[in-house]
């Protein structure tokens, strides 16, 4: 559907992974800043003292002072399955301080998926992304296999 983003070896190359992580953190942070918001990570992406670099998730940032989060899952560019999907998820015990209402974005990284992600993230941060709206945005990307 679109040319793959240059960093196709992010799962094998530590340096590339860090760049990709920075691209996403930066994108989410910049969109937040436009609306006077700040972001902060809400998941532990290091395990047993070592960073986990499997893309699942590559980044999980929430808007500081709110329970609204964005989790990005990146898949191997050579995977032959669909290239973009998104859904809402309640992470944590609903009503608790640690609970996060997530917009989860799952994709092969490309210029097109970065584009649609930017739009969805902005709509989500500004309370304009409903279930129906998300369905509409995903329609061009959806396909089913029996």
């Amino acid at each position: 559907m679109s040319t793959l983003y240059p960093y196709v070896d992010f799962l094998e190359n530590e340096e590339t992974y860090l760049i990709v992580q920075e691209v996403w953190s930066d994108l989410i942070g910049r969109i937040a800043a436009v609306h006077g918001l700040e972001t902060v990570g809400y998941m532990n992406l290091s395990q047993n003292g070592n960073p986990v670099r499997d893309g699942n998730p590559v980044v999980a940032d929430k808007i500081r002072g709110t329970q609204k989060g964005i989790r990005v899952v990146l898949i191997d560019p050579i995977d032959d399955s669909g290239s973009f999907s998104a859904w809402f998820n309640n992470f944590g015990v609903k009503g608790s301080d640690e609970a996060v209402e997530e917009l989860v974005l799952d994709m092969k990284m490309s210029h097109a998926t970065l584009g649609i992600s930017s739009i969805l993230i902005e709509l989500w941060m500004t309370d304009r992304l409903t279930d129906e709206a998300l369905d509409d945005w995903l329609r061009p990307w959806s396909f089913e296999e029996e």
Partner: protein
Amino acid sequence: MQAQGGGIEESESWSQDKPLTKSSGLALLENLWNKLSKRAQKDRKEQFDSARRFIENVDGGVDAPLGKSFVNRKKRGVRVDIEVLAGTAFVLAICLIYFLKA
């Protein structure tokens, strides 16, 4: 642990003082698998395999908070989620064997 999408929403959860062991985690995943219909299992077979591999390959446990999604990208919304909300999960149980000298 949750199986989601395609009209399915099943889960298995745990709450305990000690870290959840790998074997207990795998057993919970198996319980979740057994709750699903044959059709739902078919749609999620690869995702359960990936979740199983993830638990088996954890080195030294997983510290909260962490959420992982194993997605069937050929069927919209169909996925398996693992969420660790507090503490540590998927640690290796260590059996200590004492050899007593007579």
